[in-house]
């Protein structure tokens, strides 16, 4: 039974692993931390998997657990003392298709995201993932109106960081 469940889980996770990589991209500051966080999210997903009944989509269910792990459960190791350094692998930007100005702007934007707080990062992540305010409010546990207000503030803050 366990082996069968394991098989289903591993297959689902492999297919949807980009979702977790994206969460790591927002929260991890180095390749090592990306790897650690990916692993912890995978463990938490596996632990919660027996309760996953399939009434929600695998991805919707996984978003929540991944974000909860990144924001609350994951303990950063000491070696990753707050740096906003760009990580090489996960931020390998294929800038060819952008002009110089866009390229610079993108670099600044990704850097700015790393300077945000954990909750603000979650909002940016959910925005980039095109989630509606209903899902954002349910994921974070705040009202829809307040999610909207906060989202606008975060967007303004991002612009300010980029422009400063």
């Amino acid at each position: 039974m366990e082996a069968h469940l394991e098989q289903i889980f591993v297959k689902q996770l492999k297919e949807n692993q980009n979702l977790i990589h994206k969460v790591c991209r927002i929260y991890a500051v180095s390749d090592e931390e990306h790897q650690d966080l990916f692993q912890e999210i995978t463990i938490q997903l596996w632990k919660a998997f027996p309760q996953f009944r399939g009434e929600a989509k695998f991805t919707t269910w996984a978003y929540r657990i991944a974000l909860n792990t990144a924001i609350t459960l994951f303990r950063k190791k000491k070696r990753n003392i707050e740096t906003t350094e760009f990580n090489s692998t996960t931020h390998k930007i294929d800038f060819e298709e952008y002009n110089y100005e866009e390229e610079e702007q993108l670099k600044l934007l990704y850097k700015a995201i790393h300077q945000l707080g954990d909750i603000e990062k979650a909002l940016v992540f959910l925005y980039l993932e095109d989630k509606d305010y209903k899902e954002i409010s349910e994921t974070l546990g705040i009202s829809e109106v307040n999610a909207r207000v906060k989202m606008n503030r975060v967007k303004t803050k991002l612009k300010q960081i980029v422009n400063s």
Partner: protein
Amino acid sequence: MEGLDLLKKDWNKREKGFPEFSENDIYGMIHKRSSSIVKWIFIISILEVLFWTGIQFLLVDDDYKKIVENYHLGEFLQVSTIVHYAVLVIFIVLFYLNFQNISTGSSVKTLMNNILKTRKIVNYYVWYNIIVMFISMVFVWKNMITYDANLNDVLEKSVSTGSETGFWVGVLITMVLMIAVAGGILWLFYRLVYGILLKRLQKNYQELERIEF
């Protein structure tokens, strides 16, 4: 293209750069140990409970029984033991129920709230133990001074030599020292839990609370 639109466009395209884990990699990962803060909080909570509960039971040896007899503490001990077991059972039930509530499937805010609530229950239990320890100490000292022949000799001597104040200062210093040791251990656990493990969580929880007001 403007800032955020550009970012959104780039966001989904960037997937190519991610490392790709195979099924075998993922199998390996799910068999590794978690290092989540919930696990650490659970371990530390258990250690705390064992420590503070243990202290109360460690003292019970033959010498202790003699002291209980000599100082007429039997009744006090009986009542405090019953209360102690009752509180311990209530604590374990509450801790278990709250711990069960910690679910990664909850919303971000609910998860944080449930972790903080579970921790609070442990804190209450620790405070209960410290308060009981303090009350017992006062009680034991009171009866010791009333019933202990040796101590009474010392007290009488100090009265006759006019150094009664010295005697009471001695009693006071001993009590303060014991409180300081208990307080120091309490402080260490607090630092570990709130200074290291829950610092980030508390900051984020406060931010979520602020959004709602």
